[in-house]
């Protein structure tokens, strides 16, 4: 007899969100503080602006013990990155130095902006790429405890002023390829500037940013630059990228959130080339900061949430919640309105079922620069915002920043999805109250208990770990995927879960949001449903695997079949 009592025992609303979040950073032993970089004195006037990025967090299980670990990047010379090993008792141990992943912020090499983890050689251990304002750095995981710098050997020692990267197996050969986004031009050394003409030349349609790069994994730890061959060298000041098979043709596509310009969708043409799609994204130019992928309305498709800037009176660029209609209409449709459209100066965001009711919530980090509360740079910014691009392309002509704030002290938002009633912010109700300058947001079930914990890396400030306490009456299921023909990390694999009327899709991400990467394991809330009818796994190799009636309220490991 079939028993389906609906999405949850009680529909979530602002008064009864169905979960609570607690800041348990200190209790977990995580004391990471991000430090921003300092640059050439020629741009001292706007250094707070230029140096306002670099706090990142990525989730990995670097030692393969089944417990998610955390890696934070720092951005000042001499400040260490941090690798927190999950001890399994709710606490973490910082092991970056012994692992060889701490000392990455050095003159001549640059400063870290973020990291992505993936098993590039399919040896069962996750390797890591650190992207910097400076040289890329690729580290091979030797034994689950120590890492070896293989950047030079891999052919990746390239200077890129990057704020983002993703792993993507674009040609489905079972090896993870690498897409690196570039912000400032790659000929710019921010510590030794030959010119101050380094900024964007339009607030809306700038194309003078760094050139994004695609590297093909040749195997044997070597990579080849195939950017031009594959047609993905956007110069639109990309801040974030994410990948999924948006149009359902079996090939992973690339979605870009660009600052000072419209978003871009590169559709994968059977691994032979990428085609810049006109998917309705070109009609609005905004300041894309992050792109999060999730099934916003349980349609069985992956939608895109792109964060933007809003500031009282000055600017309402509005966040975009783009519903994926690629397979039917060849486009995305923006349905963001009300609370979800305006989060402030929004940065990292992620979809996750925080209350396990079967519908995704959305966590959004906010705030750009928190300094003097009484001084705002917005008025100064408004002076040059309408000027000819050549004027503000020159960093030296910007009004001096001083100790002003720019959209500082903004709270994070936690939106719950009420269906036709729209999204509502419940951050205060559930206990998310910090006013840090949030940047990267990553989700992970840190204690393997069926809850989506949220880790936020804050710029020039301490990181926060919010533990999720969902309604215990709701059920859940998580999937750990192991690729065989596909890359071992299963990055790019999509899971479609069907349980009664619940129909939800998730993707194993190789980097998403802003400067972040979620737990590779996929979490689904089930509400009151006591079983899952069917799970379909779309492996990157093209294999489609169906699993019926998997056990719920636990982590299910699924290995890719050979055919």
């Amino acid at each position, binding site marked *: 007899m079939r028993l389906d009592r609906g999405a949850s025992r009680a529909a979530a609303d602002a008064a009864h969100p169905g979960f609570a979040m607690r800041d348990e950073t200190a209790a977990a032993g995580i004391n990471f503080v991000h430090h921003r970089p300092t640059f050439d004195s020629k741009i001292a006037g706007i250094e707070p602006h230029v140096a306002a990025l670099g706090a990142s967090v990525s989730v990995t299980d670097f030692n393969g013990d089944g417990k998610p670990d955390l890696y934070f990047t720092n951005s000042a010379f001499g400040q260490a990155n941090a690798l927190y090993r999950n001890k399994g008792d709710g606490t973490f141990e910082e092991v970056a130095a012994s692992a060889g992943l701490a000392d990455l912020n050095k003159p001549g090499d640059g400063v870290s902006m973020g990291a992505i983890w993936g098993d590039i050689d399919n040896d069962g251990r996750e390797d890591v790429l650190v992207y910097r304002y400076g040289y890329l750095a690729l580290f091979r995981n030797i034994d689950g405890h120590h890492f070896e710098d293989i950047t030079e050997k891999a052919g990746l020692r390239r200077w890129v002023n990057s704020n983002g990267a993703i792993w993507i197996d674009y040609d489905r050969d079972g090896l993870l390829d690498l897409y690196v986004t570039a912000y400032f031009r790659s000929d710019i050394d921010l510590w030794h500037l030959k010119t101050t003409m380094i900024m964007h*030349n*339009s*607030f*809306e*349609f700038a194309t003078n940013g760094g050139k994004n790069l695609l590297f093909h994994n040749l195997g044997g730890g070597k990579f080849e630059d195939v950017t031009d061959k594959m047609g993905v060298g956007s110069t639109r000041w990309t801040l974030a990228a994410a990948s999924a098979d948006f149009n359902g043709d079996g090939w992973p596509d690339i979605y870009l959130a660009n600052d000072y310009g*419209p978003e871009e969708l590169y559709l994968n043409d059977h691994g032979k080339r990428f085609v810049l799609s006109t998917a309705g994204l*070109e*009609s*609005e*130019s905004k300041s894309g900061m992050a792109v999060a992928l999730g099934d916003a309305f349980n349609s069985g498709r992956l939608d895109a949430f792109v964060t933007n800037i*809003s*500031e*009282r*009176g*000055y*600017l*309402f*660029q*509005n966040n975009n919640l783009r519903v994926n209609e690629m397979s039917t209409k060849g486009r995305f449709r*923006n349905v*963001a*309105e*009300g609370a*979800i*459209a*305006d989060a402030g100066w929004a940065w990292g965001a992620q979809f996750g079922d925080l209350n396990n009711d079967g519908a995704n919530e959305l966590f959004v980090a906010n705030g750009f620069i928190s300094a003097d509360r*009484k*001084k705002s740079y*917005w*008025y*100064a910014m*408004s*002076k*040059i*915002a*309408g*000027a*000819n*691009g*050549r*004027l*503000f392309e020159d960093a030296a*002509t*910007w*009004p*001096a920043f001083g100790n002003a704030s720019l959209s500082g002290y903004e709270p994070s938002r936690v939106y719950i999805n009420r269906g036709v009633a729209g999204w509502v912010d419940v951050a205060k109700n559930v206990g998310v109250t910090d006013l840090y300058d949030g940047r990267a947001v990553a989700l992970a079930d840190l204690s393997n208990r069926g809850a989506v914990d949220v880790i936020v890396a804050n710029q020039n400030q301490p990181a926060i770990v919010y533990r999720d306490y969902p309604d215990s009456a709701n059920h859940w299921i998580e999937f750990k995927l192991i690729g065989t023909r596909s890359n071992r990390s299963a990055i790019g694999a999509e899971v479609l879960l069907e349980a009664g009327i619940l129909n939800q899709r998730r993707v194993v991400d190789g980097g998403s949001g802003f400067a972040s990467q979620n737990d590779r394991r996929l979490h689904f809330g089930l509400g009151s449903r006591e079983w899952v009818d069917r799970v379909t796994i779309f492996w990157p190799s093209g294999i489609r695997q169906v699993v019926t009636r998997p056990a719920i309220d636990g982590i299910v490991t699924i290995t890719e079949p050979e055919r």
Partner: protein
Amino acid sequence: MSDVTATTASDRNPLARAWQRASKIDPRYLIAFLITLVLVAAQVRYHMLGSYDRLVVALGVCMATEALLSWFDRGRVVNLLSAYISGISLTLLIKPQGGALWPFALGGFLAISSKYVLRYRENHLWNPTNFAIAALLLAAPDRVSVLSHQFGNDLTTNLVIWTFGLIIAARVGVIHITLTYVAGFLLLNGARALAFGQPLLPEIAPITGPMYQLFIFFMITDPRTVVRGRRKQIIVAVLIAVMETLIRFASDKGWPMPTAFNVAPAFFALATVGPVAKWIDLRRKRPTTN
């Protein structure tokens, strides 16, 4: 003979012929052409609208309000060109939170109804669009902004709009107002920058932005709300520039005032100086004798 020669030369010159033809056109049509040009350029090059619903709402509400109120007030529906110009201006200038449409509807209603309600001696005092935007910014800064589109910060687009704008302003006979205000802006804000040790370029940069293009070609030169007489018009343009400089000075100093003043100093300079000047001008107007 010389007259004949001159006429012939003029006839042969297409620019001169166009100039002569333009002189016979109702100025409102020229202004409507210019603002349509701005809208089309902004949409074609920069997808400024995002969607056309806001244009439909702003135009629809402006024209419907004008039609209704003029019929109630005068017993006939007046020419709707003025409402058309207001509707396009609002579409270009307003950017609401979350893509809401109500600011376009409310702004359109406020703009047109202000012409029928806020009157003195049968004349309205505020430029309708200026009034509506100032009211929206003051009342709902959490919901409405004006600075979201910069037309690509592109010099070419700026030059096209400035060129057409100046030509049409000359033909309509208001170019002295435009040029006086621009000169006043540059001088006063240049002096402000020098006096307070600020870099010059950022202080004078706003004049090149699209908000100012709409301001100097459509708001400050609105034939129905400027004072009578070229000399007085120049004086008022200078006063508006002075008021704007004072607002900017207050913003520089961080003096407490509504955010709206920081966001759109020129709009609030016109919204405060313009009606007072118009009121004084109308007060001095001799009553019409039948």
